[in-house]
């Protein structure tokens, strides 16, 4: 899986990049309305969100599907001064902004902040409505890519993205295959009251933070073999999963609060919500995290019980899981869930192997 940020660069590139950076810094410092300037990409934790995760574009999407792209663009342009309503990633983005405010207070000169980038396939003309909507809600999103129909994957890399959220499963799969942490967001069926002082992120374990090696054993050989295997290899760390680097990035920011004596008041809290049971297979997970030097604030072992009710109590701004079964369960009870299309879980539904329809050429 990818490093947090790649570091290879040549000297001349560095020079040009520094000039660009200094010019942007000066631009923002000179603005009359003091808007926080975007952080330096190689130090920031960059989160790319698509337009449909940030805003509710269900009605507009219908126009696109029923009447075609020309009518869709024309409609958006006609309504560009009407702000859109919010989408599933909106609370997550607000929570990220809050963490940034706290970080800027404690470390005014640091570039280690969250950087939120709007990454959309939309045509640039639709972009005007998106920018107007961003301004309407006072979101600090200063970077964006409107690719006019092209795949965002190359741009995700160019912006050094740490996490990509979209409503399109194909794009998310492409991102994961390219080594970028990504998940497909779903709108929950109920509203829930989320914290506005603390970012709360929940992760499933296998095939999200960790590889799917253990899940393969469950699917192919059953639970008993799985338990024996995990006991036997308790001290062997699991391999990394697609979201490990994102947890790592969150941990890095958490430690900045601890360093300033803010552990009890830390505005970031992480949760592990796993179907494993503490007694038989939980130790390996905790030991793996320890071997990676990562902390997780709360580890919840459900031993196969449904995740929905527990997540309802936790109320995370986002919950990552690789199995649609858990996503749907969480969604029903109001948790904002994001599907990570990785590993063997994709071939199964509720424990049964999905019959793949013959692929169209």
């Amino acid at each position: 899986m990818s490093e947090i940020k790649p570091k290879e660069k040549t000297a001349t590139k560095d020079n040009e990049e520094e000039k660009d950076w200094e010019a942007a810094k000066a631009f923002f410092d000179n603005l009359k309305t003091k808007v926080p300037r975007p952080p330096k990409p190689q130090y920031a934790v960059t989160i790319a969100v698509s337009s449909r995760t940030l805003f509710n574009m269900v009605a507009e999407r219908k126009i696109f599907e029923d009447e075609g792209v020309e009518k869709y663009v024309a409609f958006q342009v006609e309504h560009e001064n009407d702000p859109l309503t919010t989408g599933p990633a909106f609370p997550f983005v607000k929570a990220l902004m809050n963490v940034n405010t706290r970080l800027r207070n404690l470390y005014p000169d640091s570039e280690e902040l969250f950087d939120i980038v709007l990454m959309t396939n939309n045509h640039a003309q639709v972009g005007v409505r998106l920018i107007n909507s961003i301004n309407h809600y006072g979101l600090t999103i200063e970077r964006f890519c409107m690719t006019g129909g092209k795949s965002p994957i190359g741009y995700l890399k160019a912006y050094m993205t740490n996490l990509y959220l979209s409503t399109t499963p194909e794009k998310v799969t492409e991102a994961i295959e390219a080594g970028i942490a990504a998940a497909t967001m779903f709108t929950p069926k109920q509203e829930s009251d989320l914290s506005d002082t603390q970012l709360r992120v929940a992760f499933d374990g296998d095939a999200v933070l960790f590889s799917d090696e253990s899940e393969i054993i469950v699917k192919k050989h059953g639970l008993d073999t799985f338990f024996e295997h995990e006991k036997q290899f308790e001290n062997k760390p699991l391999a990394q999963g697609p979201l490990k680097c994102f947890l790592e990035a969150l941990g890095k920011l958490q430690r900045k609060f601890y360093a300033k004596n803010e552990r009890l008041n830390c505005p970031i809290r992480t949760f592990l919500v796993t179907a494993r049971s503490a007694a038989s297979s939980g130790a390996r997970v905790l030991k793996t995290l320890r071997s990676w030097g990562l902390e997780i604030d709360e580890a919840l072992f459900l031993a196969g019980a449904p995740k929905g009710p527990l997540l309802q109590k936790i109320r995370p701004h986002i919950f990552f899981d690789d199995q649609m079964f858990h996503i749907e369960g969480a969604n029903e009870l109001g948790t904002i869930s994001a599907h990570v299309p990785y590993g063997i879980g994709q071939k199964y539904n509720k424990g049964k192997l999905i019959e793949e329809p013959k692929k169209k050429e």
Partner: protein
Amino acid sequence: MVSTVTNSDVKQKDVDQAVVVAVTFAAVFGPEAEDGSTVYRLGVALPLLQVLQRVNERLLEKNPAEHQLFDVILITTDSWQQQQNSSIINSTRHHGLEISRFCFSTEDNYIESLVQNNVQLFFTTDGNEALQATHQGVPSALLDKNSVSCPSEQLRVLFCEKAIIQPNMGSTEASKKSAQNFLAHLGQMRQKFGVFDSPLCFTLVTSHGGKDSCCCALKSLRSLGVSVDEAYCLGGAPRGPILSLLRPHFLLSDGFSLLEG
């Protein structure tokens, strides 16, 4: 003395409605041209020439009576080049390039030539030539080895904002007016195609300002008749990786300081 020669192999365009584009000898035929042969090899301008031809083809497909097409002329910018006129004509016809006219001028009178031929965009590999032409009111763009890897199916035009912190390059009133005129033409050509599958694509990249500068630029260009297709707001992020993905055929920036504010 400037002489203008028509290329009889190519159908001449309607002078009033065509968008005249001039490309220098050095861009069309590249440095190996001077090795004494009579048929020159093609230089960095090849993808550009191909794509301009492609745009014309697509415009004519839509409307066989279309007159608002790209009209490409080859121009020499020094006396040595001026003297190679027959080799230049031969080589052009040998390669089947859609160049309708040749302007054999020298370093002293090439700009006058550009003006007289109503050139709306001047392509060169020489930075000085580009600067001088722009000052005299002819929008110019630089071609280099990066131009070789540009696509030949879609003309990609990149608009970049003028950075706040940069010495004032001093565009004149004349160059502003001709730039706006050229943009209006490009915008009209683009309008003839739909959102997707267009042989022309306009991209805006703002390097230093925030989302509001970018939004302003989008609306500004819209008011000049250009509907931008793709927009990237970098806010200080490195532009190299983005540019290498975008592969524009040319950049329009300084002649278009009207994008500012």
